[in-house]
């Protein structure tokens, strides 16, 4: 099979226990190239645990995660050596944290933040790194004259956009996002969502977006997983799930959204 015929990420029976408590239970999902998968559910439903297990930051109790590389090689993510996993994490993957402070290096300039991944994969030309940083700041709509400023001096929305630029600089194929718009005010959220949508479409990214905000899911995600108590209770096309929820919990979730 060519890479296009294979899911980019294939998850089976993924389970994570925290002692007697369930983190996520028997989750199975396929993510296809260019697809954005939304994971919604209330706090404590296992969304972040699932994201952690998929991106290799948490060790699941059971299950398999397979990732198809650019060359069509299928990697068993959970069996990779630490060296391979870390290389994957800084080349083919990206992680956008809810709090930009978790994903940025706050003590170095915006340019160095964007350039860090390039330097990690062996680029050793200052001018080239700086040019790439400027290009990516432009793509995420940050003024070029802020390239030498510390992220500390950026607004929340700018920090979040900087975090995205920092992840995309190595052209990853899969980006994990945990509440990318959490903690931002609505107008900034809208701008960020717009930007994310453009980037995903332009770069052909695949993404897994964890959110509790159904509006964010509606805008970004092609498909949706609804989680409750660690289990996937419903999955399907986003519009289908949101407009015609089948499971009682999905119905509750959709009906509890406040209408202004």
């Amino acid at each position, binding site marked *: 099979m060519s890479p296009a015929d294979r899911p980019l990420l294939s998850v089976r029976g993924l389970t994570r226990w925290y002692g007697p408590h369930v983190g996520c239970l028997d989750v199975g999902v396929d993510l296809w190239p260019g697809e954005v998968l939304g994971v919604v559910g209330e706090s404590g439903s296992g969304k972040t645990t699932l994201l952690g297990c998929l991106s290799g930051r948490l060790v699941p109790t059971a299950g398999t995660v397979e990732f198809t590389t650019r060359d069509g090689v299928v990697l068993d993510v959970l069996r990779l050596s*630490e*060296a391979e996993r*870390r290389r994957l994490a800084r080349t083919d993957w990206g992680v956008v944290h809810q709090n930009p402070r978790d994903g940025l*290096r706050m003590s*170095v*300039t915006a*340019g*160095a933040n964007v*350039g*860090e*991944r390039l*330097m*990690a*994969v*062996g680029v*050793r*030309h*200052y*001018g080239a*790194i*700086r040019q790439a940083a400027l290009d990516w700041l432009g793509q995420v709509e940050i003024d070029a004259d802020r390239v*030498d400023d510390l992220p500390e001096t950026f607004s929340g929305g700018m920090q979040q956009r900087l975090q995205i630029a920092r992840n995309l600089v190595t052209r990853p194929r899969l980006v994990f996002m945990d509440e990318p718009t959490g903690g931002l005010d609505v107008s900034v959220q809208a701008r960020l969502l717009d930007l994310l949508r453009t980037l995903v479409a332009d770069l052909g990214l695949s993404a897994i977006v964890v959110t509790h905000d159904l509006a964010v899911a509606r805008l970004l995600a092609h498909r949706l997983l609804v989680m409750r108590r660690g289990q996937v209770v419903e999955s399907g096309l986003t519009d289908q799930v949101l407009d015609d929820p089948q499971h009682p919990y999905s119905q509750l979730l959709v009906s509890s959204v406040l209408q202004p």
Partner: protein
Amino acid sequence: MSDYNFAFLDEQTKRMIRRAILKAVAIPGYQVPFGSREMPLSYGWGTGGVQVTASVIGPDDVLKVIDQGADDTTNAVSIRQFFVRTTGVRTTTATDEASLIQTRHRIPETPLAPGQIVVFQVPIPEPLRWLEPRETETRTMHALAEYGLMWVRLYEDITRHGHVETAYDYPVVVNGRYLMRPSPIPKFDNPKLDRCPALLLFGAGREKRIYAVPPHTPVRSLDFDDYPFTIESWDRPCALCGARGIFLDEIIVDDKGGRLFVCSDTDHCARRRPARGVSSA
């Protein structure tokens, strides 16, 4: 001092340190943990270097001790006296006569020769320490040779100052593998590390680490392709001996702004001006 063992440390401790040194020589640039002992010297004054020296010194060695290039500063004098009292070895200030040189902050200007051992006193052995506070993480980074972060620091230097501002303890890669802090020597001395014919041993007493650069090992200072590594240069010669192309110290001579630039390596300077009478030093 007959109450103490030769070179102060007991034989078991010396064996333990020698095992660490052997491992360090076998893996150039790798920091080997060792059971650092309390020494009759404060931390920061060279407890690591003293322990390494004590475990490699023999009765036939000729010892030279320098501090910032000088043979006559407090730290150098007291460490030299310590070894004279505990071992009775011959000491010298001449670099080419010494078989064992303990140093803080400098590599002598006189080229080192095969068979010599140089012991460096190291305050902080971990080159990634100020970039990554977690020891578990820095060890993983060394294990996987993930050193991109060090270039982030150089990038920041160039961005803020237009050039790499780090002037001492300038990070190097040893034998194409391990990132290493060359102890706080000026970057001027970094090229002397590269393929040096002498054995270079580094001891950090408080941090309990030993590492080594075996003779003739390639040592490369980090840089960018478009910002190559450079060393300091001075627009004047040494005010005492007239030497050029060596490391100069700035000495303030009065309170009217008068200053002199003189050799930091006192042995090198003294031997270049024999007519003036070295004995006065």
